[in-house]
């Protein structure tokens, strides 16, 4: 159910008269629904729910700007940006693959540059602009890279796709691509276990206007 939270975009959201955004409303009904239906099922499995930091942890209150929205979080300082997004902000579009910087599934853009969110402490991201897969579309209008991935069927299972798309957006911003070989080399930080690589290259070429 948490995935419902990831699909709205914040840029075009107007708060309603009582100050509630669509995202807040979705969050409320999602939690309400979860409260009614899931808690009895999850009794005894509390380790899969968000937890308070353990008693020996150092905690901090931090401010993160994600997809244009500011969030204040009280977190264990060990929390990576990836875990803060997924576990604290319930933005599960960014995926956890290897959690060691080897697969690229967790790729997000910080100040316009693609990075591995699994190797970044959330507390070191304050004051930076973080863009995740949820923040690329403008309202109902997909980002050109998202459109191109759909057009070229550039995914199969889809698990690596948010990271592939964020990485591809960063790649285009960096401006070092001139041919297919450049794309192969400069997308090597994103692994696709389904092997959709050729279609990913085609999608990027379309956005880059490479024949």
């Amino acid at each position, binding site marked *: 159910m948490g995935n419902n939270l990831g699909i709205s975009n914040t840029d075009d959201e107007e708060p309603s008269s009582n100050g509630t955004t669509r995202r807040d409303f979705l969050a409320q009904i999602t939690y309400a629904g979860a409260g009614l239906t899931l808690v009895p099922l999850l009794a005894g499995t509390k380790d899969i729910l968000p937890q308070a930091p353990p008693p020996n942890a150092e905690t901090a209150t931090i401010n993160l700007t994600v997809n244009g929205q500011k969030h204040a979080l009280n977190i264990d300082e060990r929390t990576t940006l990836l875990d803060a997004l997924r576990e604290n902000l319930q933005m599960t579009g960014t995926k956890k693959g290897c959690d*060691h910087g080897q697969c690229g599934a967790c790729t997000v853009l910080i100040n316009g540059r693609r990075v591995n969110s699994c*190797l970044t402490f959330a507390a070191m991201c304050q004051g930076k602009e973080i863009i995740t897969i949820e923040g690329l579309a403008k309202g109902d209008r997909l980002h050109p890279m998202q459109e191109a991935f759909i057009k070229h069927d550039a995914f199969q299972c889809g698990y690596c796709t948010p990271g592939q798309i964020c990485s591809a957006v960063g790649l285009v911003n960096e401006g*070092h691509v001139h041919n297919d070989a450049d794309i192969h080399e400069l*997308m*090597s930080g994103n692994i696709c276990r389904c092997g959709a690589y050729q279609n990913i290259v085609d999608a990027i070429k379309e956005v880059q206007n490479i024949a």
Partner: protein
Amino acid sequence: MEPFKLIHPNDQHAAIASSGAANVKFIAGGTNLIDLMKLDIEKPAQLVDINSLKLQTIEALPNGSVRIGALVKNSDLAYHPVIVKNYPVLSEALLSGASPQLRNMATVGGNLLQRTRCPYFYDTSFPCNKRVPGSGCSAINGYNRNNAVLGTSTQCIATHPSDMCVAMAALGAIVHVEGLTGKRQIPFHEFHLLPEQTPQYETTLKHGELITAVELPPIRYSAKSHYLKVRDRHSYEFALASAAVALNVSNGRIEAARVALGGVGTKPWRSVEAEKALVGAAADEQSYRNAAEAALNGAKPFKDNAFKIELAKRTLVRALKTVGGMS
């Protein structure tokens, strides 16, 4: 991961002053340190986030040197016009390392302190003298295909993983550091240590000292340089063997040369022997082969990595051919 305290000083003196206690580490890009913390290989009690310090610039100095701030990201250095034009060996080395995401995060200072990827260092269920001094080396009699053939000891055969450092070794870079007692400059060949009997000590950086910059001294012919990396897959992989070379060739003769090897040594491996073999020789394949023989003269193979000796020779010959031609 063990809990730690994270502080964010925005002044260099404060950062250095807060780093003197035992078990305190600086953190910049975090690409290596956070990974090692997740695996409980590194367990700092306090991290000093240095990303607010003013160590982010690349400057051409009046004496012809280039001074690179310790917090310059690997990707920014690799694509900097001065580096691309005058030090292609360094640009190519940086771009052959890691992935674009990691290069956007990793800093020059952090790259100097990168830890080995020896699988026994990473797997805490195995003895490793680098991780737990005195526990033994699992690689010497274990699976050691990726381990070193140069600079090994009876205590450790771990390969130094950095590409950037191989280029900097060839260029004779100078590491600028600052501690509570003042500033000092460390010549690149004195920065990294051989494992010898104490593989847990990897550099001559003292505890509490901060790397502030790396200086590239002027070399007339550094624009004629190249980094060649050979690995198991085409991209995003550590070197099996690599070569950083710069050559000054005039009328078919080699007047000056710089050579360093990666993927085969326990530290970034400048080969003065290969350079001596090249200077004064004709710029031809036989000279390059002679240099390669000299570079690998002291190599010691282990059960699974004898292939690296010939691979490193061929890598060096090909890199030299690329720069020096075949006159």
